[in-house]
């Protein structure tokens, strides 16, 4: 609780309170808000243009890389002579399966060590 307030000092603080109804202050605040908003819009506009330029530059190599990955992922790790066995083992006998297992192992290791 507030128990140590000196009344004379409190009265001085109250008397020192100045009425400040200056309309210029509110105008300045709103002007600053507007200019800050303009700056933010400019920055976001520049970032958007940069992002679009980057997207245009990397679009073709990205599509090629995705195409290669799509072709590479189902590739068998071990070749099996028998067709029906090859089909049966396909979900685990591929680069995609190896990557998925690797990811699960890393995640399990991370959870054991850091949580």
């Amino acid at each position, binding site marked *: 609780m*507030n128990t140590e307030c000196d009344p004379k*000092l409190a009265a001085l603080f109250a008397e*020192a309170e100045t009425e400040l109804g200056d*309309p210029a202050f*509110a105008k300045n*605040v*709103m002007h600053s808000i507007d200019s800050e908003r303009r700056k933010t819009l400019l920055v976001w506009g520049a970032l958007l243009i940069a992002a679009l330029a980057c997207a245009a530059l990397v679009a073709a190599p990205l599509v090629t890389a995705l195409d290669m990955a799509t072709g590479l992922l189902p590739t068998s790790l071990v070749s099996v002579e028998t067709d029906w066995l090859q089909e049966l083992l396909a979900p685990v006998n591929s680069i995609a399966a190896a990557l998925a297992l690797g990811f699960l192992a890393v995640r399990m290791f991370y959870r054991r060590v850091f949580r």
Partner: protein
Amino acid sequence: MRYSTDLLAKSPESVLVGLSRTGNRDAFAELVTRRQTWIRNLMRRCCGDTSFADDLSQLVFMQAWRSIRQLNDAKRFGPWLKRLAINTWLQHKRRNDPLRAADEHSDADTTHRDQTGIAMDLDKALATLPDDVRLCIVLNYHERMTHAEIESYTGMPLGTIKSHIRRGAKKLQDELSAYATIAEETK
């Protein structure tokens, strides 16, 4: 949507806060007009320089505009704004603010536009106190905040706040003894 200035001037604060949350600039301008005396006086007591206090007050209102959507209860606008003001002052004290130079003023370059004699003398006396002591005194005497409230707003330990206020009040009583004498004589 635009509302007339008269309508906004007559609207309760909670309505203005609600409108400001939807991005209404006019409503926020009205809030600034209503609350400027309070915030500017608080900042003047904190830093002792009217120009610099106005700069800080402007920062407070800009911060308020940026984050007013986070204010869920429109009726809590006052305490929320006060917290923003105190945080703005604390941040200014903590970091090496370029504006800081303006605060480290001498009596000669201190500006006291539209200040009364008492206000000027009070600010001079407050300027002799260390930053933390001054803040505690201002929050206690100017804002009429309890020690527990000061603790919650500033994060200072309660014991430190009590000792700051005791020490600061004693120093102010000494510095402003002339006013106490005048008050006694006029009784």
